[in-house]
């Protein structure tokens, strides 16, 4: 059954796809996390009422299926933004990273807000009454404690974004699943190829999941 026409070139194509998946995920998750922290802190600081416009925008990113967001964003950027600003064509890769980053930021801001809310008010009162400023309290007390609460959800988010990144094929980004499909069409070996593809996904996710587990364990000591 495994006596197929799979060449080392084909494996290389899969590896390149995996690299692309990893790259898109890494960019989207880093950027999305930074934005998510900013939005999350803002939402917490502003309170539910003043944060309403921001919350609404983020909810839009959370509730529209990613595939539709990608197609719409790509169309918007290349049909409206590029002609009006008179800039060169924006690559599918850039659009993909941008959309995935906003999608990550929308979920991440929710996680961050929840983490901040979980820090007991009396600890913050204690740090402020020691003369620490809002920023010092945020950086030295709130963020470390909120991170402990938020980490499991954040790992889940990062892994989810990695799998969802398979959808960026729609804007012509040659990621892992797309390259697998190309090979399936050519070699007619769907099972083998999907197994290899799955293995690649596993190899990418496993270290992230384990690293999260390690941190949780280390933090549970104190």
């Amino acid at each position, binding site marked *: 059954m495994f006596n197929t026409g799979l060449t080392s070139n084909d494996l290389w194509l899969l590896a390149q796809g995996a690299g692309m998946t990893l790259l898109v995920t890494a960019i989207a998750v880093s950027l999305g996390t930074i934005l998510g922290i900013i939005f999350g802190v803002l939402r917490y600081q502003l309170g539910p009422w003043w944060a309403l416009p921001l919350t609404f925008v983020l909810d839009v990113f959370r509730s529209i299926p990613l595939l539709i967001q990608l197609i719409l964003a790509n169309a918007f950027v290349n049909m409206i933004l590029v002609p009006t600003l008179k800039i060169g064509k924006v690559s599918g890769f850039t659009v993909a990273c941008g959309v995935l980053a906003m999608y990550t930021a929308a979920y991440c801001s929710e996680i961050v807000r929840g983490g901040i809310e979980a820090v007991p008010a*009396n600890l913050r009162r204690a740090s402020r*009454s*020691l*003369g*620490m400023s809002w920023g010092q309290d945020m950086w030295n007390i709130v963020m470390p404690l909120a991170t*402990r609460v938020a980490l499991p959800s954040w790992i889940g988010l990062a892994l989810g974004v990695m799998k969802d990144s398979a959808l960026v094929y729609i804007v012509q980004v040659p990621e892992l699943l797309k390259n697998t499909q190309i090979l399936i069409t050519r070699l007619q070996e769907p099972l083998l190829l999907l197994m290899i593809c799955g293995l690649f996904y596993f190899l990418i996710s496993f270290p992230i999941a384990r690293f999260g587990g390690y941190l949780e364990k280390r*933090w549970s000591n*104190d």
Partner: protein
Amino acid sequence: MIEIENVRKSFGPLEVLKGINLTVSKGEVLTVIGGSGSGKSTLLTCINGLEPIDSGRIKVDGTEVHAKGTNLNKLREKIGIVFQQWNAFPHLTVQENVMLAQVKVLKRSKAEAAAEAEKQLKHVGLGDKLSVYPGRLSGGQQQRMAIARALAMSPNYMLFDEVTSALDPQLVGEVLDTLRMLASEGMTMICVTHEMKFAREVSDRVAFFHKGVMAEIAPPEELFGAPKDPELQKFLAATH
């Protein structure tokens, strides 16, 4: 010197402080007693500017706490406060808890802060707990750590808000002993407490709060020996 002049403060429709006048001079130990909800905690949090006031004024060493230009972070360096709930930062060791604000607020070097933390922790009897996380401490030890953390800022004043109220009875003594030690060292203190015996022993003056009013203030012999205010008489009868 802490000068409190005609301070009023409401939470919504509820007036919690109804014109408080009080001066605490250097080296004085003032204890505040009174029923729950009488405004004792609110007064303390107004003194260090954690809560705004509606009218009147509070001056600490001549600086008006609630004036517009007052740097509250600067002011709070001078005023240590320890609360009823335990407030250890759980992600830092006992020593790091005591070091953090020294480094961030007073800009002391790590080495200086570590040495000061060790000194203060030894002072409150926690010299053997430096590298322990607070989760491993008893309630009494957590409160003593909080006291050391405040003392490490070299404050001019210490405010204590029912620091023994959340403790198991057998742990109350060790914390009160720490407060007695501070009083004997000449620290200026305001202690809100339900421990009448303690109030009688350490105080220069005792203030009785009732429904947002300071109904009586006098040296302990007088206040406990010959209470004048009828509400105070009832309160003392109930606590004996």
